[in-house]
């Protein structure tokens, strides 16, 4: 019973305390706005933002932009994972390939995908393909590097055990190598999904005609600071939601060992 009570208190706490902080921040915002320190066109009031939110919902534009951005991130990020994980597996197992490719992968990993925007527009025009390309670049190299490192660091013991028990070839890949790196892969996917979500906004601001990034740019051009704040809130919340979604993967029983040791 005692334990249950503490758990309830903790659940209440973990909901109430953050809420207090949010309310305080909105109050601060309102106070600054009311003080007149900022010009009306530089800082919208919370009320104006609420009205803007309603307006955006009614017009359906916000939902459309949201879906567009999510679609692009899913494609770019999915492609990066689908190609990056196998490549990382290969590089992790082949020392000479690793020596050959590591410098160039490191180079691209440290080159901001935003620097590719001009080429993205030249090659793919303005729209989905450009954004997907840029998101792909943001996730592809980190995924390769992390997978590679994870594979290279699998304890030799596991492979010896596999040999003792007759696990060879493809079975060894699916029953030893993959499960051994899965916890690290999930962590990497969480980090790179966050990165992709950051990049999609920037990509759409310059190389888009729709999507949340474009909406931000459009609101700026129309001097609609109220809508700007609406979009910022949505972008932030979706980023958090994406991470919460991927965190679910860490709850799979057979990967718990990677987080509890």
């Amino acid at each position: 019973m005692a334990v249950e009570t503490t758990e309830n208190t903790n659940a209440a706490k973990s909901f109430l305390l953050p809420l207090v902080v949010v309310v305080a921040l909105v109050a601060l915002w309102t106070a600054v706005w009311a003080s007149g320190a900022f010009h009306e066109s530089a800082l919208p009031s919370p009320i104006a933002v609420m009205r803007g939110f309603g307006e955006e919902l009614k017009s359906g534009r916000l939902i459309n932009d949201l879906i567009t951005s999510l679609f692009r991130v899913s494609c770019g990020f999915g492609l990066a994972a689908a190609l990056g994980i196998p490549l990382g597996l290969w590089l992790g197992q082949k020392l000479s390939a690793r020596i050959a490719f590591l410098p160039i992968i490191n180079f691209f990993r440290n080159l901001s995908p935003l620097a590719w925007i001009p080429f993205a527009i030249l090659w793919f025009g303005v729209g989905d393909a450009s954004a997907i390309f840029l998101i792909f670049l943001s996730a592809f190299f980190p995924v390769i590097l992390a997978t590679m490192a994870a594979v290279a660091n699998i304890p030799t013991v596991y492979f010896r055990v596999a040999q003792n028990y007759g696990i060879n070839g493809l079975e060894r890949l699916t029953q030893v190598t993959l499960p051994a790196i899965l916890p690290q892969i999930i962590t990497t996917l969480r980090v790179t999904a966050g990165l992709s979500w950051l990049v999609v906004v920037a990509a759409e601001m310059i190389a888009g005609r729709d999507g949340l990034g474009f909406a931000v740019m459009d609101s700026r051009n129309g001097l609609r600071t109220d809508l700007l704040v609406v979009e910022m809130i949505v972008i932030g919340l979706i980023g958090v939601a994406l991470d919460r979604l991927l965190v679910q993967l860490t709850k799979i029983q057979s990967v718990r060992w990677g987080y509890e040791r």
Partner: protein
Amino acid sequence: MSSKPLQLEKVSRSFGPVEVLREISLSIARGEFVAVVGPSGCGKTTLLNLMSGFDQPSSGLIARDGQVRMVYQQDGLFPWLTVAENIALGLRHLKKQQEQARQTDELLRLIRLEGFESHYPHQLSGGMRQRVELARALAGQSDILLLDEPFSALDYLTRLRLRQELARLLDERPRTVALVTHDIEEAAQLADRVIVLSERPAQIRYELSIAVKRPRDLTHPEVVSAIHCILTELGIEHDHERAAGKSLAALTE
């Protein structure tokens, strides 16, 4: 001779300029329990890796007859598999799921971990994990068990308990065993024959047979005497007792 499951003939192993093992000849009879002890870094694990086939000798011959399984100091279990799934790895040759499940249950009972089949290794204590490793290695029709300091990561009392446990398991499922350890008590309490290696390059320095039936008490006179012999051979004990005994005898005369 062909009935010997494990036979080493003048086996040497060097890593570059470092000679680790020199002309080791050793044969282990079916069902025999041989312990190899020696100073740390003398090449005990190298010897075990050669026996298992993970490593090849620089010269000499190794003959193996039967299925080899190795038990590690720690972390030899696959952490992504449950206890039951880990044990079932040793039963992969069984085609029928039902038979696999039945034998897995039997092994769980054998190591007294019924009720833990769905636990993952990280949810178990070190001693429980080593018992699961033993069960996995004993599953099915394995012939040769190679134990690489299997209890050395455990606390002293758990280590003592697991020695008894291993003796009991081997009584129920006899295997040919090679144990590598720096724990001389462990060797004396478990092995039919103890091989003492010299410093690098390791050679067989001394052999000792212990005829007492397992399980043996740690304080059994034969075990104590074997420990004393091994320690003396390693230059750690110096026959003080015997010397003291002699002088006492001289006094009473």
